[in-house]
């Protein structure tokens, strides 16, 4: 591999997202760093309130006020995009970064045909004639597996079923051949059989177009099927990030371990599921030290005092004091 292709497509450094409220500032995403290589699928997984969706929103520059990026940098291809003015960011969104959201209905304008929405997006970002754009739109619909695209292009969003609508949204995200797609829970609103279709579609598109994907979801199954690497988030921090096989089958962080144990699986039905007691802390009451420590069965002295930073263990980075040799030795 030469030096050039070694540069990550997206780099997030020490990102911090805050919500100022009258009772003080809530830190929803707290000092997280990761990168995505070209063509790579990074899964970001976590339970509700972990900050995974906000991380995605920060990257595409669509944080809902009063939420704001309060620190850190987001670099796309080595260029900072977190401090761009709105107009510039709008150009990048769609051209360089595509977005797919959970609810396909809200991502489409119900008053326009899907063809019009697709061609408008294409014409905004690419230098094409109207007829070329339409041809490209039909090609995109074909690409995302919509049957009879020549006919369907003139239909309105409500004439599509839920699964087909999500395909249209994916086509919309692909309009300008972006290098990165941020997909926030793209399969959550869909039935299992449709979910499988969309997962397969995302995987295929990634392979064929070389598009990188940041896949935000709460569903470990979707991650296992789709992602190359996975970041597990807890209370605004990354607990563990590494190759998907390592994280899922040899979880290192006690939270990931507990999470994997609590998912019911086919084939072996235990008498009881392994469970993590308690719940994710509210943003107003994040515990001191490691945010997971009150629920952790392997807690020891430093956990309640100091916030762990990611420690490399094999190919994985784990934010857990268990993997800090000096702390561990001191405790024993």
């Amino acid at each position: 591999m030469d030096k050039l292709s070694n540069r990550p497509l997206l780099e997030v450094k020490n990102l911090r997202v805050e919500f100022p409220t009258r009772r003080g500032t809530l830190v929803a995403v707290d000092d997280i760093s990761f990168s995505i290589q070209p063509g790579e699928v990074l899964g970001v997984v976590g339970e509700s309130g972990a900050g995974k969706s906000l991380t995605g929103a920060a990257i595409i520059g669509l944080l809902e006020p009063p939420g704001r990026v309060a620190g850190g940098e987001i670099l796309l291809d080595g260029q900072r995009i977190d401090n761009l003015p709105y107009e510039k960011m709008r150009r990048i969104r769609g051209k360089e970064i595509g977005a797919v959201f959970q609810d396909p209905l809200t991502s489409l304008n119900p008053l326009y045909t899907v063809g019009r929405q697709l061609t408008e997006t294409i014409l905004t970002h690419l230098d094409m004639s109207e007829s070329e754009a339409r041809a490209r739109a039909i090609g995109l619909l074909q690409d995302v597996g919509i049957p009879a695209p020549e006919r369907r292009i003139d239909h309105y969003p409500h004439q599509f079923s839920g699964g087909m609508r999500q395909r249209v949204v994916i086509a919309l995200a692909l309009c300008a051949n972006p290098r990165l797609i941020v997909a926030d829970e793209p399969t959550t609103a869909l039935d299992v059989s449709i979910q499988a279709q969309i997962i397969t579609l995302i995987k295929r598109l990634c392979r064929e177009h070389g598009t990188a994907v940041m896949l935000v979801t709460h569903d470990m199954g979707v991650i296992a099927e789709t992602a190359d690497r996975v970041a597990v988030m807890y209370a605004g921090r990354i607990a563990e990030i590494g190759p998907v096989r390592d994280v899922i089958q040899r979880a290192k962080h006690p939270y990931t371990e507990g999470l994997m144990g609590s998912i019911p699986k086919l084939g072996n039905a235990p008498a009881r599921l392994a469970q993590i007691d308690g719940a994710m802390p509210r943003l107003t009451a994040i515990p001191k030290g490691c945010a997971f420590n009150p629920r952790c069965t392997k807690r020891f002295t430093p956990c309640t005092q100091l916030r762990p930073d990611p420690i490399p263990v094999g190919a994985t980075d784990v934010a857990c004091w268990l993997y800090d040799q000096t702390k561990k030795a001191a405790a024993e």
Partner: protein
Amino acid sequence: MSAPLVVATDLARYFDVSKPLLNRLLEKLPRQTLRAVDGVDFTIAKGETLSFVGESGCGKSTLARLVVGLYPPSRGSMMFDGTDMSKLGSSADAARVRKRFQMIFQDPYASLNPRWRVGKIIAEPIVVHGLMSGPAQIKKRVDELLRQVGLSPADQEKFPHEFSGGQRQRISIARALSSNPEFLVCDEPTSALDVSVQAQILNLMKDLQRELGLTYLFISHNLAVVYYISDRVGVMYLGKLVEIADVKTLFARPVHPYTRMLLDAIPDLEMSGRPRTPVAGEVPNPIDPPSGCTFHPRCPYANDRCRAEAPRAIRTKTGAMVACHAAEEGRLPDLERTAAPPPNPLL
């Protein structure tokens, strides 16, 4: 085995989804009926867990509401321990039966009255059924219930918004248990919860079943959850029961092509690298279902008979009840699923 606790015979519920009268007259539209549940038979034995799975729109939630009497059936009957539920008025008899079953709902944010304190919410069935008299006695019972579901007795002074989703679901369970029911209908009780919390609730439900000898009717779209909690499983498609069998049989040797499809669509956490060929098609509009077997447009084994004639349930040699012409005629290849399934011969 003793007589089953719940017997549903040809249970059906139709909804009139026609446009308003004026539109129908002007646009010359016919009346439209949604057959949400269309002739379902099942029994539940005491102490067992029967689950229904299916995709959205298959009628599983309507079925749960039919069972507890929130909807009157359009056809068929629902017997609870020998009493016909549709003939329950609001008499004293009705109250005696009603306190023996309860329901747990899907959305922990909508299933508790936001203006009531937790103690009052949990005590409502006790007060309504007149099971206890005196605030002291009721409070003692609420204390006990809160402890039973893993909360603290002090929590009864709080309002629902002070609790997380998982804790609210525990409150829901405490309310459901307060009249000492034998039978709980659970409509997707964990699908709004995070996985780690889902595990807590599923464990709690299993513990309670063991301690109190409860009978569950469990509704879910999540096959892995159903696999964990059930003794028997029914698979629904467009208002009809396509297959019902005990959990081991259904997951190891699924017969109906739709069951096989559902099982194949579960994301693979073991990462066995099995190639997944996604199933084509989506659930059709339930207002205008396909003719014959409603699954035929998506079924690889459909023939002319499937397109014309609705299949009746037959018993297979594994003991499952299956409504499928192909299964009846022996046109389906045998399929045994193991932890690492062989390449699916279906696809």
